[in-house]
């Protein structure tokens, strides 16, 4: 299921610019299967949590309207080069994934 996710974190002045790409179908539950005419059940990321150096910096709740293979960018003031960034997600079927990166 869970394919790798990518994180890029770079310092810009005193702010860390963190970008993350996740792999997920983000199925809305509103599309029909072309062959069977049945609705494809919703399957999407509900929770995303990001920490920098062990402190939570972002907690997100997502609905079905986040695009497929989600992209997330945010900026953290006061982070330092070398700090560890960890991003985790969990979807509505209980699948989980996480990735780590170091701020460059």
């Amino acid at each position, binding site marked *: 299921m869970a394919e790798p996710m990518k994180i890029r974190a770079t310092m810009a002045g005193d702010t860390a610019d963190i970008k993350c790409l996740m792999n997920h179908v*983000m199925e809305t539950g509103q599309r029909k299967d072309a062959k069977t005419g049945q609705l494809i059940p919703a399957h999407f990321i509900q929770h995303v949590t990001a920490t920098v150096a062990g402190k939570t910096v972002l907690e997100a*709740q997502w609905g*079905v309207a986040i*695009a497929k293979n*989600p*992209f997330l960018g945010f*900026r*953290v*003031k006061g982070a330092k080069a070398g700090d560890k960034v960890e991003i985790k997600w969990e979807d509505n079927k209980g699948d989980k994934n996480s990735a780590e990166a170091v701020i460059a």
Partner: protein
Amino acid sequence: MNPMRRTFLKGTGAAGTVAVAIAAGLLKPSQVLAAEWPKAAFESKNVADALKGIGASGPADSKDITIKAPDIAENGAVVPVEIFSKIPGTTSIAILADKNANPLVADFDLSNGTEGYISTRIKMGQTAHVHAVVKAGGKSYTASKEVKVTIGGCGG
């Protein structure tokens, strides 16, 4: 045997365990709530209900919120959106697309130095206003921008 019934029984069993854990003081109710997905807010059919669901009813218009999104999106399935909030003490940013079947797209809680900035890509069913709702200091503020969605991807 009906597999749905098995799942249901398992589900009730798990919920029971959580209740027992709360009763025994193992889990604080606040921790449980923080982990809970706001189902009602995400399933609301209009913006007002969705805002009520995330505790941001009646936000005030603000010029300190900027939404960067295309004027015309050729593909409604991938609409890049960036939200900038210059309001001091921004603690959360929510994104809504008012013509989607369920307008609430996402709600981001920011803490420990995260700036009032979020960049992501959303889906839009049709031409609509993208709303950003920012919570700061116990108040909520909003701004919106219209994004035209051209179905078929042939451009304007």
